[in-house]
Every structure is written in structure tokens, then in C-alpha cells.
């Protein structure tokens, strides 16, 4: 089976230790996580993990089953890139004088649809949100001028299909 990129979405309780438990599932199977993001979700007191892996669908399915088995996980899903809307964010810290010395930088800012977050005497910071290849492209363009610091976030994604967490939780409270 061929390897491809999958986005795993995990809805869970917000508990200390769950991140360790979930990352252990990847560790046990020697699978590298490409990116991982944890945030609140659309439901109050429910956290959402967004994990990107590059592996076979068979492995992804098994991992998702193991994740879902964890007591504090409400539900886990996996999707292909086609099935999700996803973005990453990046910050570039660049020396301020370049903004005036290198005209090309201004073009890059305009063409990449990035924003200047702050400007100081010594440096300015560019923020870019988009697909990985767009951020990579911008990085490649800026690199020759010198990047003082660079950071990119993990992928965040929403799915085209529904993820019926509310129904699962409602069913639980109805059964009680």
C-alpha cells in the first residue's frame, strides 16, 4: 500500500497526560508525526488534536482505532488532503534595513499575501498563512536576503464532511 499524507483529527477531554498517551501510539509503531496541533474545538471543554502523518492508509486506520480506544478520546477521524481544508502559519523575522535596501522584498510581501506584524528599528516580522508549498516558496524567496528567525506551525484543518461529536456527547447524556 502506498504512503500518503493523512490528517488525523482527535476530539478529546482536556487532560494532562493525554498528549503523552497519543504520541506514545505513534512511538510504539515507529511512525513519525509530521505536525501536531492542539487547540480548543467548536465544543466547550473539548480539545482537538490535528495530527499529520505520512504513511499508508492501513496504518493510519489502525492508529486511529488505537487513539480512539484511549479513555479520554471522544472520537478520532482521518482524512486525505482532498477531504480537508487546511492551512499552516509561518513567521519570518528579517532585518529592517532589508525592507529599504532590497526592493524585491517588498514584491515578495505583496505577492505572497503575507502581513507585516511588527516593525522595529532592527527587524520586522512577516506572517504568512497558507499551504505548505506557499510557505516553502516564500521561505525560498526570502532566504537569499537572510532570515533571522523562521517558524512554521503545524497544520490546522477542518473537514468537508461532518464530525458528529455533539451527537456522541448528547447520546451519552441521554443514556445516563
Amino acid at each position, binding site marked *: 500500500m502506498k504512503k500518503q499524507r493523512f490528517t488525523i483529527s482527535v476530539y*478529546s*477531554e482536556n487532560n*494532562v*497526560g493525554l498528549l*503523552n*498517551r497519543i504520541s*506514545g501510539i505513534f512511538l*510504539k509503531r515507529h511512525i513519525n508525526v509530521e505536525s501536531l496541533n492542539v487547540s480548543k474545538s467548536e465544543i466547550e471543554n473539548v480539545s482537538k488534536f490535528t495530527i499529520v502523518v505520512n504513511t499508508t492508509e492501513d496504518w493510519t*486506520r*489502525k492508529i486511529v*482505532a*488505537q487513539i*480512539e*480506544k484511549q*479513555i*479520554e*478520546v*471522544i472520537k478520532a477521524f482521518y482524512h486525505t488532503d482532498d477531504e480537508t481544508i487546511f492551512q499552516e502559519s509561518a513567521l519570518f523575522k528579517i532585518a529592517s534595513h532589508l525592507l529599504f535596501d532590497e526592493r524585491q522584498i517588498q514584491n515578495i510581501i505583496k505577492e505572497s499575501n503575507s502581513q507585516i506584524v511588527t516593525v522595529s528599528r532592527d527587524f520586522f516580522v512577516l506572517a504568512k498563512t497558507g499551504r505548505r508549498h506557499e510557505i516553502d516558496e516564500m521561505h525560498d524567496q526570502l532566504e537569499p536576503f537572510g532570515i533571522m528567525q523562521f517558524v512554521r506551525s503545524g497544520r490546522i484543518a477542518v473537514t468537508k464532511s461532518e464530525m458528529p461529536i455533539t451527537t456522541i*456527547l448528547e447520546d*451519552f*447524556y441521554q*443514556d*445516563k
Partner: protein
Amino acid sequence: MRYSCMETVKLKKDQSKKKTGIKITGAEAIIHCLLAEGVDLIYGYPGGAIMPVYDELYKFQDKLTHILTRHEQGATHAAQGYARVTGKVGVAMATSGPGATNLVTGLADAQIDSTPIVCITGQVPRHLLGSDAFQETDIIGISTPVTKWNHQITKAAEIPEVMAKAFYIAKSGRPGPVLIDITKNAQFEEFEFSYEKCTGVRSYKPVPEPSVKAIEAAAELINSAKKPYVVWGQGVILGKAEEALKTLIEKAGIPAAWTIMGESAIPTDHPLNVGMVGMHGNYGPNVLTNECDLLIAIGMRFDDRVTGSLDTYAKQAKVIHFEIDPAEINKNVPVDIAVLGDAKTTLELIIPLINKNSHEDWRKEFDKKYEEEFAQVIEKDLHPTKPGLTMGEVIEEINLASGHEAVMVTDVGQHQMVACRYAKFKHSKSNITSGGLGTMGFALPAAIGAKMGAMDREVVAIIGDGGYQMTIQELGVIFQHNVPVKIVVLNNDHLGMVRQWQELFFESRYASTVMTNPDFVKIAEGYHIEAKRVTERKDLKATVQEMMASKNPYFLEVRVEKEDNVFPMIPSGASVSDIRLK
């Protein structure tokens, strides 16, 4: 007998009532939680960070018996033995640091063999967490991969809810181990105690809803199969589905084999019980896996020791998997129909849809294969003509002396395979072994727990000379509490199973498998346990009978042939069809 579990059971009945409005310490609250969960017996080892709880145990010793094992690992295995024989949750307790890390092997064993235990560990006070304090260790981090759930309590007020959740999670659904780590400040703090049993956790669905569609489809496959074959595992025992399984196979006339974790769910002499699958299982059950047209797996997980090579496992057959844990479906063997749910519920739903059948020709295939195995292996094991004693004949003598009524607790290695192959059982929950993890040292402490959980039954521990020395210190518990277990060490002065592999696959290079052993009889006698050694066949029967008749703990060493091999055998990575008889 100094220890009497039965008496303490009666004392705790009224303890499950809710207590409200009384301020007590966290340590006392832990005791009330245990009593409310029906716990009357725990195993453990005290130490600095758990001392407040031990102080309460002292005050509550009329209601809650604490057994001091000689090592924390022994406490976990004893709790496992107790859980496996009773179906209740076993409890072990330890201090922080090394006390906690010594629980890890037992937790891992309980995790892979789905055994409900709750382990309670003390932890350094909250303000010292992360400071590398004396006996501080991150037991939550360490135990995460080997627990079904774990949690650290840092405030006394969290104790009731977390403890209730711990017991609920350990025993519900697919059972497993839970570890609760409690900082010392939380044990000292006072709070208003009230207890409510946990009835559900919103993010956890212990038992999936059975699908009527899947059950109907499975019934159709079973009804149309010409050569259906059941392989059951421990799920049948954990799900209390023994009767349902028996009804199903009797109605449909399906031969049924077991994994070692499922052994004893159906009596050994039941005509449809065709024996053991797996690496050292019976010949027919392995070979015919690759000849059946329908494989019905019930409460088992297709472990590699059961399947051999997956590429050649039951490829010709349709597969139905009755399973409580959705993560097991299609994990190792792709299935045609997954019937999710607990085994009792789903089997009871499918039985009315099953047509009566007898499959006589198909069943004869198993008989034929058994005859072959009997001639080439079993006869020589059970009725040897060579001078050296075999492990098989010892097990057979125990069968004869126990009338198939005993609980058998085995360790890991050759003796385990031989015991599982030849032990005969009448009752479920009678074969206690370390299946998935293969933990040497399991049997002696597990036998203590099993005996305390089933005081009315004989408990015989069968152990090799290697594994015995891994937890031999638990003889101290047997002596101190006069736990009347029967301990049989099958001594071949080798780590027999590894030696067998070295002989077969490493050209007899016996790297570190030869053991110079101490005088085991003297050691047992040092603990004031009656002890005998058998070196010749003529003494075996009478000594085994004497052991089984004893009302006290009894140690029996049998000097068996040093270089015997266990057959049949599926070489590692080979197909079930390639099982070797010699």
C-alpha cells in the same frame, strides 16, 4: 490457617453506602473508596510516599486485608491472579519511585492480557513534583503505554471521583490495568468525603452496540459453511460467555479450539473442544485452520503466536470476528464480518439464527489429526518409556490427582506450553498464565492471588526453574499467611524454551541457558513449607497425590529430562500448516 479471605468478605458488605458530610483525610478516603468498590484484599509494599494510606490500612485491617508481598512486582501478579480467578478487580499498592517502577511489568502483563487491576502509588508532595525529590519518578509518564488509564491526584477532593472512575475503567469493556498516583499532600489533606460509583465516562464507550445486520450476515455464513471452525480466546471468559459458546458450537456442530488465554472456558473433555491453537498447540487445530471454509474467531486477537505467518493464515476461509474492542478488527487478520459487542450478548443473539448441524466428516478430520499427534507426540509425553521424567507426565499425574478440578497457574516457557497442552479442566477461569507478555516470574505470585480469590479450590502453580527464581521471594507470603498453594517446579537445570530454540535454530549454542540451581527443597524448607523432590518415575504418582491431599502449602520439585523439546512446534514466522511434530 492464619489468613482467611472468606471471613473478611462478609465484613465489608455494608461499606458501599454513600458517606456524606464527614471530613476525613485523603488517605482514609482511599480506604473508603476501596471498601465501597467491594475490595477486601490488596497486595502491596509500603514506603515513604504511601505511608499515610498504610496508617489507615492499619486502622481498617478488620475490613481490608493487606498482603505484604516481597517485591512490588509480586503484588501486581498476585492482584492479577486474584482478578483472573474471581473476575473482580485486583488491587496493588506501592510507594513512589522504585516501588512504582517495580509495578511496570505487572501493568504491562495486565494490559496485554486484559486483566482488571487497579494500582495505587504514593507520590512525593505536590510542591516537590518535578524537583527530582527523593523517590520521585514520573510514574504517570512511565506507565502510560502499559495502562488502560492512569491519573495523578494532587488534591484530596479528587480522590472519590478518580477512584470510582479507576474501578469502572479497569473492569468495564475490555478490562485492563489502571494506575492512580496520589501525591503525599493529598493523602494528608482533609475534605468532605462522599462516594458515588462511576457508571459512565462520556469519552469512553466500553461495549460497542451489536449490529443486527452483522449478526444476520454472520449467521448466514455459519449456516452455509461446510467446514466451520471456532477459535476462542479469553474474551469468552471475560465476557462470561462460556455457556453461550457451548450452546452455539453444540447447536451448529462446530469444532472449537482455544488460545491459551481462553483455555478452560469449555471443559477439556467436551467432544467439540478440539484443543489448543498456536506455536505449541495441537496438530489438528493448527493445520486445519488452513482447511476450514469459515473461521469464527471469538474474543481473541490473532496474536502472532497463534497465527504464525499471516501471509498464509486461513487465506482460504471466510473470517468472522466476534470482538469487544473495535481496534482489534482487521488489526492482524482481515475479516469478512466483524461482530462487535461483548461475547455473551452477541453469541446469544446469533444462536436463534443458527441451524442445527453436526459436520461429522469435518469433525473426523480433527480426530484423525489427533491420532497422528497422539502417536508421534502425546503418547511419548504422557506415557514415556525412556528413563527421564517428562513434563507431560507430571501434568497428567496432577490431572489424575485433582480430578480436573484444580486451578492451574503457569509461568512462561516449556512447562507453560506443556501444562496448557495437557492440563484438563472442568471449570472456567482455571488456567491462569501470562499469555501476551510472557512474563517469567508470573506464576508464584499469581498463584497466591488465585488461591486467595478461590479458597475453596486447589491452586497448583507449575513453574520452571528459571521463572521460579525470578519471584521466589514470594515464598515469604505463602509462609507468613499459610497460603495453601501447591508449587510444582519442573526443573531441567536450563532455561528450557530458549535452550530448545538454541538447539533448533542456533546450532545448539547454549548461550546463558544452563543453570546451576540451588537446593530448591531446602529453600522451601527454609520458609517452613513442606517440600519434596522427585527424581524417579516410581515416586511421582504417590508424591503428587500426597501434595494434592495436603491442606497446607506444598513444594514439589520434579527433576525432569534436561534437554527435552516441546512439540508440536510452528517455527517462528512459519505457517500454521508447517507445524512440526518432531
